[in-house]
């Protein structure tokens, strides 16, 4: 009996450890791949890019998708008429699906052409004629599969027939066809379809002729949930000229329209796909246009499992595109033009794994399992150090691993908004303006950037991020309300000055003259991350310097939004990410008629200054010119004086990448840059093995210790048995 018990002790101890060791060896093969590699050994040498995504996309339908994490996928799949040049700066539009960037033709009310320099008031319509490239074909897709007789195979599916299909890949037959002007028009009609809730429907309705009428016509026709053949309905402003040409007519002058043409909203969509996905039963299996795109681009979605990973693979029918031949002068030195003229895409596959936690993501990057990584603020010190002039450099540890760094100031802004509809903090009264200015001085965003972003941001002096037309760098770009200029550099005004402003505002030492009670302000916050506590504490600390007590009202995002909508908040932090590189896209956030409370617009602080509004109307439709710059300067001065926002910061994107990952140049407007990227899989695999040698001795030690510990136990057992027998 002694044996059996002994066996049992051991059973839970060292064989378990031994078993794990054996399993590990079995799973990893011998020397093929590092043990902790999260990918199969067979993929070790393939021309695949590995990256991660932290939040699963919500919509992959080009008519609905409007978020960066969704563009990461669909911008590689769908091809709108235009794109941003990969290398050239400032950002420049170049053709993608179109043959050339369309020039608007201005018309008067009667439809007669006007010269290009006609006054804005005279322009009643502008026509954009878009020529698309012939020979663009869709990725293989069951919706396009035809049988020998030329009849679509999968357009008459029944619920029973669908039972067999779990993913799109389960359909045995696929087909393709050429994308035509009709498909582009079909997609514009989809934008108007009320059922799809396209986020840009409202703005397009303002400009495209016949857009709203089209939507109401669809609504009137009734919606039974099934397929609606949009080809049956006409949109007045969109006409097909021939197989490869179509025309869009806009109301008035809208120079920003070309920017929209570079977004996936305007990519071609075959009607077959719409019909295919509307068949019964497919929705239940998540087979919908929202999850399975169909595009003409360089890649197609080969594996769609947003719970685990998304895999993009080369589209075999891709019409071909060449790597740009020209770039900025420094691009040649940086090796950005080494692949000039080569056929795109340069990689075969891209694997995006779902990675929600920061720690694993960062560690996997360091171990070489992700080719690129953003830098979270907590791994920052490990990766980046600043030189004596404040420039960012990599640490020795990173350099040792040949890791490289790319930085760029993002075209977005984070700001602290004062609700201008609030009686205490908002409004046009002189006192409240002093109060806002005082707080603007006290909230030290330089410190915020250094603590929470490790310097990955630039303090904002106005609403326009650097690189957007109208923003100014150097001394004239400094906000004189918050900063003094010292040797041409900004220096935040002292707290004394802020306190003086507080006194002028009627709150000496933070106490109201009228009531004698300290000023209490509310700060709305929707943040709920590990970092939020520190951030909220920091914010309180800032206002305390002026004697203001900040009450944090932490809540969830829905509630936060509701407060903005109803205008019941006082202070809040918010941000905006540019849709296109034009100052209009930022200044409209402060345009009175866009007020959130009254007009449900994007002006979250409900700022409404008639002078500013008038200037905005004037500036909005102008071409970039010195006159436009002048108007913008005046607008920015008004804003700085009124201080409806504390101009927070423009975030700086720092991304790290390994040396086997080539052609990295941050491009904040273009989303379809995957096709330019290059991978050297052999180097990668060698590095991964060198960096991740398995350390087995602790395992061995554990086995030994467990074995050794059974000896005294056995001795005691023997003694016990003997004494029991006696």
């Amino acid at each position, binding site marked *: 009996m002694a044996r*059996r018990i002994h066996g049992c002790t051991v059973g839970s101890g060292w064989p378990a450890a031994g078993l794990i060791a054996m399993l590990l060896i079995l799973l990893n093969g011998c020397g093929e791949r590092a043990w902790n590699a999260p990918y199969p050994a067979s993929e070790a040498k393939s021309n695949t890019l590995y990256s991660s995504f932290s939040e699963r996309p919500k*919509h992959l339908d080009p008519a609905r998708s409007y978020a960066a994490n969704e563009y990461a996928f669909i911008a590689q799949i769908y091809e709108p008429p235009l794109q941003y040049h990969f290398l050239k700066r400032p950002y420049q539009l170049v053709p993608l699906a179109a043959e050339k960037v369309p020039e608007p033709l201005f018309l008067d009310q009667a439809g007669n052409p006007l010269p290009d320099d006609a006054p804005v008031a005279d322009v009643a319509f502008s026509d954009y004629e878009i020529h698309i490239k012939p020979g663009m074909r869709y990725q293989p897709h069951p919706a396009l599969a035809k049988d020998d007789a030329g009849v679509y195979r999968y357009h008459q599916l029944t619920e029973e027939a669908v039972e067999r299909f779990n993913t799109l890949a389960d359909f045995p037959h696929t087909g393709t066809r050429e994308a035509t002007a009709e498909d582009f028009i079909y997609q514009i009609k989809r934008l108007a379809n009320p059922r799809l809730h396209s986020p*840009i429907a409202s703005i397009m309705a303002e400009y495209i002729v016949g857009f709203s009428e089209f939507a109401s016509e669809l609504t009137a026709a009734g919606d039974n949930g099934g397929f609606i053949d949009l080809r049956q309905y006409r949109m007045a402003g969109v006409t097909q000229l021939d197989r490869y040409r179509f025309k869009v007519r806009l109301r008035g002058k809208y120079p920003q329209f070309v920017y929209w043409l570079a977004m996936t909203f305007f990519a071609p969509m075959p009607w077959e796909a719409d019909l295919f996905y509307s068949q019964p039963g497919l929705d239940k299996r*998540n087979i919908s246009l929202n999850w399975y795109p169909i595009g003409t681009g360089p890649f197609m979605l080969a594996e769609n499992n947003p719970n685990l990973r998304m895999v993009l693979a080369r589209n075999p029918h891709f019409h071909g595109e060449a790597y740009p031949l020209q770039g900025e002068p420094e691009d040649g030195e940086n090796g950005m033009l080494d692949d000039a003229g080569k056929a795109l895409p340069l990689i075969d596959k891209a694997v995006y794994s779902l990675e929600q936690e920061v720690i694993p993501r960062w560690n996997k990057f360091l171990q070489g399992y992700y080719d690129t990584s953003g830098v979270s603020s907590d791994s920052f010190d490990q990766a980046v150090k600043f030189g004596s002039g404040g420039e960012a450099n990599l640490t020795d540890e990173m350099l040792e691993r040949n890791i490289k760094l790319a930085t760029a100031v993002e075209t977005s802004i984070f700001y602290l908004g004062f609700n201008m509809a609030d009686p205490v903090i908002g409004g046009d009264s002189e006192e409240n303006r002093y109060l806002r200015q005082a707080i603007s001085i006290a909230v030290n965003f330089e410190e915020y950037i250094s603590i929470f972003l490790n310097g990955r941001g630039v303090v904002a002096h106005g609403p326009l991020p650097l690189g957007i037309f109208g923003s100014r760098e150097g001394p004239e770009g400094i906000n004189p309300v918050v900063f003094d200029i010292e040797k041409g550099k900004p220096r935040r005004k002292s707290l004394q000055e802020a306190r003086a402003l507080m006194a002028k505002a009627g709150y000496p030492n933070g106490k109201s003259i009228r009531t004698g009670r300290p000023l209490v302000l509310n700060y709305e916050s929707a943040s709920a991350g590990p970092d939020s506590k520190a951030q909220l504490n920091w914010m309180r600390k800032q206002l305390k310097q002026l004697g203001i007590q900040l009450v944090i009202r932490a809540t969830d995002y829905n509630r936060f939004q509701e407060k903005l909508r109803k205008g019941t908040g006082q202070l809040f932090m918010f941000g905006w990410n540019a849709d296109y590189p034009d100052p209009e896209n930022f200044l409209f956030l402060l345009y009175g008629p866009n007020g959130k409370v009254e007009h449900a617009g994007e002006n979250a602080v409900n700022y409404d200054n008639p002078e500013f509004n008038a200037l905005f109307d004037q500036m909005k439709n102008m071409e970039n010119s010195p006159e436009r710059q002048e108007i913008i300067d005046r607008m920015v001065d008004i804003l700085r004086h009124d201080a409806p926002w504390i101009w927070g910061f423009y975030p700086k994107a720092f991304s790290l990448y390994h040396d086997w990952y080539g052609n990295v140049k941050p491009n904040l407007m273009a989303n379809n840059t995957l096709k330019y990227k290059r991978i050297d899989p052999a180097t990668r695999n060698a590095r991964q093995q060198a960096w991740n040698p398995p350390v*087995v001795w602790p395992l061995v030690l554990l086995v030994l210790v467990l074995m050794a510990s059974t000896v005294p136990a056995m001795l005691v057992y023997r003694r016990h048995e003997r004494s029991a027998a006696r």
Partner: protein
Amino acid sequence: MIAYIVRRILYAIPILIGVNILTFVLFFVVNSPDDMARMNLGMKRVTPEAIENWKAERGYDKPLLFNSASQGVGQVTDTIFFQKSLKLFQFDFGTSDSDRDIGYDISQRMWPSLAIAVPVLLIGLLVNITYALLIAFFRATYIDIWSVVLCVVMMSISGLFYIIGGQYLVSKLLHLMPISGYDTGFAAVKFLILPVLIGVVGGIGSGTRWYRTLFLEEINRDYVRTARAKGLSEGIVLFRHVLKNAMIPILTGVVVVLPLLFMGSLITESFFGIPGLGSYTIDAINRQDFAIVRAMVFLGSVLYIIGLLLTDISYTLVDPRVRLS
């Protein structure tokens, strides 16, 4: 026996209705249809008309519980509660904020959850019972006392620490296993070892202590004394008598938790990036996707009730006297 089971199943129905009403009230107070529309439609450029449209399209423009505008039965059936909540009984969970069918996602995500939960349960059971038997064998010696202290120490460490520490040690320092991730098929084993190991180690403290108590209770019974008096060795006594008899509470304890294994472990799954139901729930809570949370509440309740049912049945199977009551 069958009549008994049928009676128990019938008893479950009012409970499920209760759960349903409770969750409906909780979640629709928290999350109005307006909020749902906003979450679904995204953040930028959402107009009030779009929200009204969205609600009308999905039937969220109806009153919550009572529709005074309708006629007859319609007053009750033409409401959000009737249309949305009662569908749960057909396991029709509707769609999430990201327009995915929840039922389909659940059916896909329960397998990874099981792949962690089942090994943790089985291996944990084996390890804990073995240790508990050993401790029971050495009862009232220093080994016993210190083992119990060790168990208490292990119990007192937060589970989060086991996970953070385990990942740091095994993956980052020793390079033995991937830090996180998952794969389909056999390749998943590589990703499962570490979370299973941590799950087992984290459970040793409380598990071993609990089984030790069970064994000690059995050891003090008369039949064990008799067996020992017959001159049987301690090992045989422990194995043949004590373990066999303690198996009844052990197994019924396991049966209760069996159905809940489907729900997965919230923390482990999200730390290790395993696409199971636990991380599904956590994500849903964080993104406030209440359709998913509601579906998971309902699923959890159903599974809990099944667990109770199984326990009752297993009791009657093990001990026929119970059936009489």
